[in-house]
């Protein structure tokens, strides 16, 4: 990473200005506290060096954010927004120091509008709280990342987080109707509105979605809600091979004639990590892979019919058994296992690469064959799991703790994997984002005209490049990064 060249630094006077804006309680220069906030869920040892913000701030309103940005823009001080820090791409890591903006105090649900089926929230609301608030009103907020008990909605929007219900409802962006955004110079604007259609101008809402804090800072979000299905059921289906599991996926729609809310895959290695972590067992845990298929609807009998149809089909297609979870205790058990795979792997392995690959759904088996071959070649293991219904597989390459030069080996293995992904028509990240972690690989997947276009978009929004520098976009031709 290049050293910051022409960015301004946070002087005592800047801290004073920030305190004047936010009050003393809204600003921290405590090194230890800054260190805690200067990272996300990417382990710090994966960076070339620790990155630290110079000052940490806790705005409580759009006005606060606007004043912070106006000042930062004048002085060319980098500003990194931070949600809950559950990101898996280093997006919230302050790569060039400067001001780190935590949204934990902008955490109010401002309005639940049942007439227009939408909810207006601040960016620091925890995703699961939105789900709960909607559910209380008999409504569904469809965003459902596995980290939802922790992540902030602002982070979800900035990353266009996916999750478990993408095949039916789309990623976070599909639920976003409007955004209040503070632009780099401190001006405040609304993109979109409580409208289901809108062609008045560019679709800036969906440009902001997934922009990882590089184009503007999101201060309010209007989310779309749906009627909450009355009944849900999860099928847990063990398969003798990963391939059989994946081949079954398209059959659900084609022959089963249903669109499940989710189709998740957990391979044997992933499941055993989760079982160890949770000290629990799922049935048939020796199987090569398990699918979780979620069906939902408003009529118990209809859902039961669909369950039988999909279940029988699975058995015809080689499933070892079909388990049916339709009450909270068994559904929770199954999802808890699914959702803790990521943490379990981090708990038991030191040397891993956590990939977020996405390929056309019919190429997933090819991808996994390639991963197998790669594992043999590089003498490593892999744990694969993820949202297989949408072709998004979290491939985790795992190397032994005591392996010398694991870092270099991993880098090469990863390069080979990326090459395969590209050939399969896939790409680098489906939902975790580019951030700091994957930026260097971006040119392998996007061509020069597109990279150039991204640069121009970035500079149109943020001419001084103060917004989350170091992430997602190459905007400075000379240095490849900072310095206007």
């Amino acid at each position, binding site marked *: 990473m290049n050293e910051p060249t022409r960015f301004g630094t946070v002087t005592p006077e800047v801290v004073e200005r920030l305190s004047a804006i936010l009050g003393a*309680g809204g600003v*921290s220069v*405590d090194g230890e*506290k800054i260190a*805690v906030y200067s990272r996300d869920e990417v382990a710090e040892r994966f960076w070339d060096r620790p990155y630290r913000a110079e000052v940490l701030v*806790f705005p409580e309103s759009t006005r606060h954010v606007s004043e912070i940005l106006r000042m930062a823009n004048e002085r060319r001080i980098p500003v990194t927004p931070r949600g*809950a820090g559950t990101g898996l791409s280093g997006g919230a890591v302050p790569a060039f120091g400067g001001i780190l903006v935590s949204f*934990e105090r902008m955490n109010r649900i401002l309005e639940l509008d049942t007439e227009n089926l939408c909810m207006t929230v601040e960016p620091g609301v*925890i995703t699961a709280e939105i789900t709960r608030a909607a559910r209380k009103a*008999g409504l569904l907020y469809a965003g459902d990342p596995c980290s939802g*008990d*922790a992540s902030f909605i602002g982070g979800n929007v900035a990353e266009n987080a996916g999750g478990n219900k993408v095949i039916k409802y789309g990623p976070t962006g599909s639920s976003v109707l409007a955004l209040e955004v503070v632009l780099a110079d401190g001006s405040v604007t609304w993109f979109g509105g409580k409208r289901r259609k809108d062609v008045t101008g560019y679709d800036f809402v969906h440009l902001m979605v997934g922009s990882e804090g590089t184009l503007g800072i999101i201060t309010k979000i209007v989310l779309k809600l749906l009627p909450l299905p009355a009944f849900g059921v999860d*099928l*847990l289906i063990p398969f003798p091979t990963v391939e059989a599991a994946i081949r079954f996926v398209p059959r659900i729609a084609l022959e089963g004639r249903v669109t499940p809310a989710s189709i998740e895959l957990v391979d044997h290695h992933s499941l055993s990590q989760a079982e160890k*972590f949770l000290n*629990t*067992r799922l*049935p048939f845990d020796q199987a090569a892979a398990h699918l979780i298929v979620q069906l939902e609807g408003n009529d118990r009998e209809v859902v*039961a019919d669909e*369950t*039988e149809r999909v*279940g*029988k089909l699975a*058995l015809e297609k080689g499933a070892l*058994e*079909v*388990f*049916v*979870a*339709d*009450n*909270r*205790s*068994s559904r929770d*058990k*199954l999802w808890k296992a699914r959702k*803790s795979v990521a*943490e379990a792997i*981090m*708990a038991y392995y030191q040397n891993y690469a956590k990939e977020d690959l996405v390929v056309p759904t019919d190429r997933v088996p090819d991808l996994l064959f390639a991963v197998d071959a790669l594992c043999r070649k590089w003498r490593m293991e892999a744990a694969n799991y993820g949202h297989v219904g949408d072709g998004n597989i979290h491939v985790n390459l795992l190397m032994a703790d005591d392996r010398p030069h694991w870092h270099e080996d991993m880098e090469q293995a990863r390069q080979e994997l990326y090459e395969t992904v590209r050939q399969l028509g896939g790409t680098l990240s489906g939902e975790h984002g580019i951030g700091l972690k994957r930026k260097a690989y971006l040119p392998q997947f996007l061509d020069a005209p597109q990279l150039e276009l991204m640069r121009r978009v970035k500079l149109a929004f943020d001419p001084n490049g103060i917004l989350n520098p170091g992430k997602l976009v190459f905007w400075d031709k000379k240095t490849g990064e900072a310095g206007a």
Partner: protein
Amino acid sequence: MILLKIAVFLKQVPDTDEVRMDEKTGTLIREGVGTVINPLDQNALELALSLRAAKGGSVTVVSMGPTQAELALREALALGADEAVLLCDRAFAGSDTWATARTLAAAVRKTGPYDLLLAGAKATDGETGQVGPETAAMMGLPFVSNVCAVEIRAEGLVASRSVEDGTERTRAPLPCLLTVVHEINEPSMPTLAGKMRARRAPVHVLSAADLGLNPEECGLAGSPTRVVRIAFPKVTRSGLRFSGNELDRGIALVAERLDSMGLLGQKRPARSVDSARSPEAVRPIRPIELAWEEAFKNDPGGGVLVCGECRNGSIHPSTLELAGKARELADSRDSSVTVVLPFGHLDDDPDRCIRHGADRVLAVCHPALSLYNPDVESRLFAALIRRLRPEIVLAAATTSGRTTLPAVAALVDTGLTADCTGLSIDPENGDLLQTRPAIGGNVLATIRTPSRRPQMATVRPRTFRLPPEDPSRRGEVYRLTPPERFLLSPLVPLGRETRQEEGTPIQDAEVVVSGGKGLKRPDGFRLVEELAAVLDGAVGASRPTVEAKWIGYPHQVGLSGKVVTPRVYIAVGISGAIQHLAGMQTSEFIVAINRDPEAGIFRVADIGLVGDLFDIVPRMAGAIKARKEAQR
């Protein structure tokens, strides 16, 4: 091959995660709230299915409930149960545990006979754990509660039951009833084939008339207890903050609060043995020997009877707490307090019960009583209650109290309120008002036993402060030897094993002291451990300390660790990230120690101490120790 005919009691409970209250009417909002099979009943069903798989036989599931309870029964059928019986009648509505047990007993008689009856140790809504033992006692069947392992033998079975400090093994004949805890197995998930079969299988519905029950004996009409009031305990945090030279005051306040919560009193019975032996504590009291058959034949009746507990030769502290509380209740009724102490041998001084408030102590002693046998104990207590005719009977809500007392209540035909945290006398009519938490602590219910006597309650240990001993109190100690017929029992206790002291699991501890990244170094946990030791508490941890391997994963509190609800949670050097709060914010009393006044942990703390933990923690441990010393 033994063919086992097994019946499993199944309760459909509201999904506690979704429980909401109508604040105006004080009732549960059930609309839109999902239901689940009571989790421990699933373990009971799993046990039944695995026994059937091993020994052959059949499994019948029985549920009393509204028509929707059919769903729970169908789930059981899907898991492999052979038959499902739904006890459904308007007349059953409003049943307390006693009326429920009666209805279940009638159903068992009607659909049985069975070799084995199984139930969960308690349900997540009522949390009484009384239905199993009451049903068994009403049917005259032996029972073992809190079972964590079973072996079927040629002659009956051997069950291990989990108790506070380990396990006890008991041999029981068939037929008998077992209530199970979750350690016993991992419930399975139904298969598609099971679901398909269950969807089409019949569920037999039986009404009060089918069971030969008179509507007066069922439901609300047949229930000895009445809920008179529901309150919603609001967790309000006092949110006091102390820093700088205010810290001493804050620390003193913490110690004071712990004391008033009864957490600094004597805990280890061993200590009481010492005081019993120290010469100045012992007054020469000569027990009055009484012949069982003649004892208290002409007792005037009335008063409060405490069913005491002795363990390893000493009187359990909860018995002394209850003696104190009983004194208070008796005083407002102008009556007397009797404590019954059953034991095999005793190194302790029964007179301590008198110094804590009793008027007389009945030491019921026989070598056969050294190992716990609920069957013998419940019959002994029931016999004494019949003779002494007390108005009120209290026992500690320990595993043994919560096992024996339901059987006693069934034998003497009266209601029982489980696990009370408040007891008082209604000034209007002299009834005992029994207050207890329910539905995961979401409500506090106040219960009365209007028309039957005695009024019985088990009381959560350490709810009432141990009163100071009053050396001037006088009373009588009687010694009774129960006749052999009481000691003949179908249950044979085989022995007990105390758990190796590797620290209490954090979910079970009353006090949890947790350390976070603020401890700086792995050995920082020593500080936390020392404070925990002073409080007899368990050690918890935040995730980064577990990740850094300063401490093991079983200690992790939070979203991806354990959820704990201790009476006291002390967070040391923990910032209070939402994922950590998710694991501890429902603790009764929270103390936070952090040098950052903005730390999120202070938002949930009752008392926040702002400063350096390396300074505060030792001072706090010192202050608590000093206060404990002063107690003695």
